[in-house]
């Protein structure tokens, strides 16, 4: 009975029948891999519309507000936006002390624009904020005054505004959860992202009942489906949702 072909790696040539088998097996594995690569890439969820203008530092001028979170009301609209969240680099919020010191002052600052089709943010270059010595005229510089839209319950996902607006696409969902927790713990404003049946997103800045920061109280509810009860206000370009963190209810996925 003839022996079956036997492969010895250090021999210069393998038996012909084995070479042909290995060739076919290799093609099979490569085709398998290519199929997996194509399927997994094509099934990736659609990401947000945000952009991070990384490397393009610009100057901005406007009125600095400390409430409900540090904001810049730009002198002139940039695109269709005048209200900009202010944050520091990496996973750090804008300094509350600087915001308090320059509240309602006209300032100039340097930073990088982060925006999606709903909201915008400036990652401020450290120590670049300068008061222009002019308190401005809050009556004209301020956005339309805050108006209450009433009590409501919203369903969505809490994320950090910085990643979601464009630093990371996607800046939502489970893989991003740890990052969002670190960002919000670091002072980045938290927002609730809701999605209607047509897939349209909306953002709601989350603050406490009196407009205070609640970052540390919501860390356990980030990047999961939740419902939240609160009072909705419109402040300039922003939807501001005043909530009691105890009203957050985690939903089964």
């Amino acid at each position, binding site marked *: 009975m003839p022996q079956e072909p036997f492969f010895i790696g250090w021999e210069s040539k393998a038996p012909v029948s084995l070479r042909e088998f290995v060739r076919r097996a290799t093609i099979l594995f490569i085709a398998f891999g290519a199929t997996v690569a194509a399927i997994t890439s094509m099934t*990736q969820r659609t990401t947000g519309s945000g952009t991070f203008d990384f490397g393009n530092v610009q100057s901005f001028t406007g009125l600095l507000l400390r409430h409900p979170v540090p904001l810049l009301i730009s002198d002139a609209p940039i695109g269709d936006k005048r209200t900009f969240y202010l944050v520091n680099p990496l996973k750090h919020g804008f300094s509350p002390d600087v915001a308090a010191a320059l509240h309602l002052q006209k300032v100039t600052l340097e930073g990088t624009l982060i925006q999606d089709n709903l909201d915008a943010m400036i990652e401020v270059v450290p120590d670049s904020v300068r008061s222009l010595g002019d308190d401005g005229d809050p009556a004209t510089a301020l956005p339309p005054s805050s108006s209450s839209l009433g009590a409501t319950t919203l369903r969505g996902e809490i994320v950090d505004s910085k990643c979601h607006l464009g630093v990371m696409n996607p800046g939502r969902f489970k893989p991003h959860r740890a990052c969002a927790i670190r960002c919000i713990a670091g002072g980045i404003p938290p927002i609730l992202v809701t999605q209607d049946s047509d897939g349209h997103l909306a953002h709601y800045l989350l603050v406490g009942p009196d407009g205070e920061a609640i970052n540390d109280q919501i860390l356990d509810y980030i990047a999961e489906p939740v419902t939240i009860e609160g009072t909705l206000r419109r402040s300039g370009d922003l939807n501001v949702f005043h909530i009691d963190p105890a009203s957050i209810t985690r939903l089964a996925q």
Partner: protein
Amino acid sequence: MSASYKAVGWNAFKKRHDVVLILSVLLFLAIFIGIGLLRQPKLTLEILLMRAFAIAAITLLHVILAIGPLARIDRRWLPLLYNRRHLGVTMFVLALAHSVLAIITYHTGSDLHPILSVFVSDAGARMTAVPFQALGFLALVILFIMAATSHDFWLTNLTAPVWKTLHMSVYVAYVLLVGHVAFGVLQSETAALNTTLMGAGILGLTGLHLFAAWSQRNIDNDIETTADDSEYAVVCRVADLEENVPLGASLHGERLALLLYEGNKVSCVSGVCQHQNGPLAEGQFKYGCLTCPWHGYQYKPHDGTSPEPFTEKIPTFDVKIDDQDRVLVRKHPNPAGTPVEPALI
């Protein structure tokens, strides 16, 4: 085989193997990244790369884990086993690239140390808060230890049984990675195809391993011996032996390889290769030696030693043939390298 240590003892097959491997990985990455950029140009590049490396790594891990049982079921797969360690190191490099990107992207820049953040940031006591990144990190540590000890230097110094046990921890890494994927990206990328692919991978590998174990049950089952036997056990009949092709059996849990060679000689050695504990009973008699099917390590059947200048040696067994043409093997092995006069038929 080698008599000294080199980074890689290249031969023509290894070179071809690694060229195909690298081109295949690059093709995989190009397909994933290309489609990703075309479909979603706003997807953050580091996240796209992170995903590409991760999916390439776990796909390669499935291939690596499939090769072993495939080679046990059908020996024609053995050439792919020969260089499996190169696949493993490549997979580790992909996993490392994924991990470095994930840690930089998701965990640096806060007040917490990035590595500590991997373990504590998203940890919680419920399904949606399983710290999946911690599972991935632990798997990476295992894969690192395996990649770092993949060289024959470690194989020799740790000894094959210890090395083999250490490298069996790839299955622990696999379980951790299944958890990493299931509690991580599959919670976000909820398309049924993704879950189906992961499920098919788990079921496919489990099925292959079970089938391979079933197909080898005859070798793994101990030969039955009676209490009144002498020191010898009946392993088979002479007619069962095929020249130059070893017959495998298991005696008191010890694998052995019985070989008919050079027309009328019958010898018996341990069925476990000293190199990586490969199955010598699945090898062949080549160039005057019993040759391991995994990496071509060779042993002379009458004394279990490798031909010079190599120094490997395995235990031998005394063999005799009784007047009923039955092949009897002494139940206790001789020390490795002990010459034994072949039984003659």
